[in-house]
């Protein structure tokens, strides 16, 4: 019997489920392996009888937590799909800010109707998570790999090394060396035009050295930089990375801003360890 698969979304943009829907003809192949019983973006059917649950989005309210606990009880295997569910993701940018201010900024006069937690959390802050598919959005090949591994009862293989590995294999010019940047010139302050705008900012800087690989360094391949969407590697050497960013002219505050985009929750967890 095919494993029954369900998708659930929490606080997130549903972009990861969209990546799955966009598998197109491969989605049909996938349906040979599994039976999808819950997938709001694709089918109207709903069922509480499933084996594998994919969770998208961060957990940010009591109601979220209750729903997630219910899913956990129903599912044999729970997979965090995408950065919001896996590491807190973009939503956790607000974790370091005053929650009241954030609510007022976003909802104005309706702010008091909001009953969100002070912090947006990844799924594993609430329930046990068996597997993680990182990325904002997820990588389709990696999703297929995870499903295929689960169907075969194998442990999915997700890289533990940083993006630099894939970037080197792709023979990209290191982001830190772009525009004639030279890592040997200390405090080299460089300014670059942000593509498509009048904005000028320092850089480019890259979070690749502490970010989990598995994306085939696609952002750097296309000429931009790594923003850290797959989260920190298991044992990131953030001190060394901060020194590198400092050498290239980033202030401590600017460094923390870079880290906060996706690493917010992970940073806090690391502090508490």
């Amino acid at each position: 019997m095919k494993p029954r698969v369900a998708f659930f979304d929490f606080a997130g943009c549903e972009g990861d489920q969209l990546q799955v829907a966009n598998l197109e003809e491969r989605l049909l192949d996938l349906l040979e392996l599994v039976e999808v019983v819950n997938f709001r973006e694709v089918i109207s059917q709903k069922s509480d009888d499933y084996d594998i649950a994919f969770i998208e989005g961060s957990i940010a309210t009591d109601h979220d937590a209750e729903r997630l606990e219910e899913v956990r009880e129903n599912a044999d295997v729970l997979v965090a799909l995408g950065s919001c569910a896996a590491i807190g993701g973009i939503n956790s940018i607000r974790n370091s800010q005053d929650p009241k201010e954030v609510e007022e900024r976003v909802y104005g006069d309706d702010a008091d109707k909001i009953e969100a937690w002070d912090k947006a959390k990844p799924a594993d802050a609430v329930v046990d998570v068996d597997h993680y598919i990182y990325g904002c959005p997820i990588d389709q090949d990696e999703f297929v790999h995870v499903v295929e591994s689960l169907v075969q009862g194998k442990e999915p293989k997700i890289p533990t090394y940083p993006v630099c590995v894939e970037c080197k294999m792709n023979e990209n010019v290191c982001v830190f060396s772009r525009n004639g940047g030279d890592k040997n010139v200390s405090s080299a302050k460089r300014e670059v035009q942000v593509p498509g705008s009048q904005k000028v900012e320092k850089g480019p800087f890259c979070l690749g050295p502490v970010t989990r690989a598995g994306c085939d360094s696609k952002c750097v391949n296309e000429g931009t930089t790594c923003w850290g969407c797959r989260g920190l590697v298991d044992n990131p050497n953030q001190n060394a990375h901060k020194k590198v960013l400092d050498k290239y002219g980033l202030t401590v505050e600017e460094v923390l801003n870079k880290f906060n985009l996706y690493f917010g929750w992970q940073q806090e967890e690391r502090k508490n360890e």
Partner: protein
Amino acid sequence: MKAIDKSDFSEFVDNLIEDDDREVVGVQKKDSKFAFDPLYESDDLRLDYDTTILPPKKYFMPQRETLIEYNIEKGETTPVNRVVPRIILGVHPYDLVAIGQMDKVFEDTHEDPYYLEKRRQSVLVGVNMENVSDKSFASTMGTATIDSGYDLMLTDIGDRYAIEVGSSKGSSLLEQAGAAVDDAKPEEIRKVKQFKEDLPEKFRSDPEFDPFELPSLLKEYYDNDEFWEENSEDCLSCGTCNLVCPTCYCFDVKDVNDISLSEGERMRTWDGCMLEEFAEVAGDENFREEKAARYRHRYMRKGRYMYNRFGDIACVGCGRCSEQCLPDIADPVDIFNQMKEGTS
């Protein structure tokens, strides 16, 4: 020795691109750096480069390659060796030395047909270094010039390239240039000799060690945990120093199934001893869990283990690791100098 006018050489390269069945690759500009890439016109060839991001080993041991295709339903396996015959233009002497070392590795014990067949079907056209990377210490390592290991070797002598022929593969390639090639004149041969003699001046002057000292220095430092811990403190475990090294050849093998689960490919990909999982084995045991242990291993392998096995110091002094390491902790000269100072 032969020689050819530069304009004739360009025409020769364009003709190879046009007419030769083999793929012509050569060193080209890539943003602020250089890289070996397929060549579409001779104008893009930059024989005056200092160093490339990746060494040419990628042509014999690609970053990712298929070893076997299998069909689970039929129980069939088919070995696959996707060989692209190539003419590789612009290989520096230190990289040729490294390729020579790799040849020994892949021939030894179990011949590796994937590497060896790609090697056999490629022609190496070397070039003597006109510009030297700031981090290169090839002259210290004795790899700044080379007398063999190439099929052809070019030296820029002004309006012409002097060409040393290193093999019959090289001489038959040169035949395709026809009458444009003539014998080098005695003063041109003298120029090449002079060029090689003057070359060491272009290299950094800080190395304080001789390559032959490295195996014993490393042996002495093996148990100096403090030394390895201090030097590896800022290591990002990103594997850059491995991946860009012309003598690193470690790989990982994995099976990649087609979504149908009925067929798939067994692939090998580059690996590196600086990566956390490299020495992890079944049962979650990791023989080199700490970055200091991994960092030490890399140096041991370059200066001692390979020497013990093949008689080669497996660092050719290209300087790529040093140039590309972001926290700037991968300079072999720094490590070897520290050892030398500590023991003298």
